[in-house]
């Protein structure tokens, strides 16, 4: 086979390009829902982790969140996916849902650490100032600390989204046809590895590059007020 024929058989014959496209759709779908779940749950976990009793000691919420983060970070995400698929959500037919949930719960643990670090990086004086102006603890957090923390959070959060998007490549384990699986599938039909694998790699790269550009724009806009 010439390189042209290889290209044809890997992308054009039998409308195979549709498989990559469908695969990419599934990859993005899973990553998108997982990112949203991760963002929400992760922020909640971070606040739980930072919560204290009135006496200033960490409360029960803190320990629950810490245990959750420890367990999730201490186990491989492929195992979490298999556990979710074959055990926890055994009766669910919706593969994208199961995968999104699995990756979202996983991502939340990492997001919570990012958010926590972002909040801690805001000077303590900001909280004290808010409190001395008569705001409640929750209000200070919402209106003063979190908006400033956002700026610290965005860059590592972009990192986490990128990791998340690429990590979805393991859903082939549970027979979801994501982009990586589409490449595997075509390789199993054409017995030729080069084109499908490189093709899928290029598609991932393009998508992640686009994501990086968008994150760059967001970051720049948040920093606009820095230079006065």
């Amino acid at each position: 086979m010439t390189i042209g024929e290889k290209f044809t058989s890997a992308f054009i014959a039998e409308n195979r390009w549709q498989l990559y496209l469908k695969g990419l759709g599934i990859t993005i779908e899973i990553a998108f829902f997982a990112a949203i779940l991760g963002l929400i749950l992760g922020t909640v976990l971070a606040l739980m982790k930072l919560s204290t009793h009135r006496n200033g000691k960490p409360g029960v919420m803190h320990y629950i969140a810490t245990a959750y983060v420890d367990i999730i970070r201490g186990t491989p995400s492929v195992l979490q996916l298999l556990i979710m698929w074959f055990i926890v959500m055994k009766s669910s037919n919706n593969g994208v849902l199961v995968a999104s949930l699995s990756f979202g719960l996983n991502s939340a643990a990492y997001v919570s650490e990012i958010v926590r670090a972002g909040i801690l990086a805001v000077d303590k004086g900001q909280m004290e100032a808010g409190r001395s102006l008569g705001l409640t603890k929750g209000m200070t957090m919402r209106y003063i600390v979190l908006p400033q923390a956002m700026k610290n959070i965005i860059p590592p959060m972009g990192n986490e989204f990128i990791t998340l998007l690429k990590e979805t490549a393991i859903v082939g384990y549970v027979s979801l046809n994501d982009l990586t699986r589409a490449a595997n599938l075509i390789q199993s039909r054409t017995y030729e590895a080069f084109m499908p694998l490189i093709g899928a790699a290029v598609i991932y790269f393009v998508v992640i590059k686009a994501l990086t550009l968008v994150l760059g724009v967001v970051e720049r806009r948040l920093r606009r007020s820095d230079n006065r």
Partner: protein
Amino acid sequence: MKKLLALVLTGVLGVSLLTACGSSSSASSASSAPAETASTESASAPAETESASGSALDKDTLVIGTNAAFPPFEYAGDDGTPAGFDIELINAIGEKLGKKVEVKDMEFDSLVASIGNKIDIAIAGMTVTEERQKMVDFSDPYYEAVQNVIVTKDSAIASADDLKNKKIGVQLGTTGDFIASDIEGSEVSQYNKAVDAVNDLINGRVDCVIVDANPAQEFVSQHTEELTALEGSQFGFETENYAIAMPKGDTALVEAVNQALKELKEDGTFDKLVAENITGE
């Protein structure tokens, strides 16, 4: 300006990397196309030296690829290494050829693409198909099989028409996968292992599983309460032949393996292995 330069340089590097691999692979496959003598798809150096020096037979150790998720032909044995009919057969062949045999467990769908570079021979209950024959040479067939359809006991599936518009579980890249993908309106779930497909049949995620007869019996025997395996003839599936896959154009190796296979059949070893591993007598 510097940025632009860096970008351009990166681009050039990337493109040259890709084309470097690309052109060498097209060169090797171009030579394989007319004469069909060069080794497999890969452009790797060992594959080329192999076809130049003649045969994988020149080596002391033959590297065998299999997919140990296909009982009773191959499965993970008690010590975790592949065991089963195919493994014993290839060991016996290795003995006949006076070669050491090293068995590697890998994904079924990557076996064919690995022959000639990662492995010398693949034995994995692999059916001879025209597409595969374009990429590898096969030995004489050593076993006849047909696909079975595993269904739950309460399933209404009984004929080829019933399979239309159904959710079908298969192992990626197997004959069952090819058959299922061709069925009208089918929604095929490809798993890395057939046993995962069977699990999802029990979980209700797929309506049936198409897999070779012997593994099908094996899987059903573990879930006799819930599952049953239907004969492929009921669905019009054709009989298939398992054979050993070897690098394209390595005729010396193919002949040697065929000779060994013939001797093993003649001296009764083959039948003994069948009885021990497959028919369970």
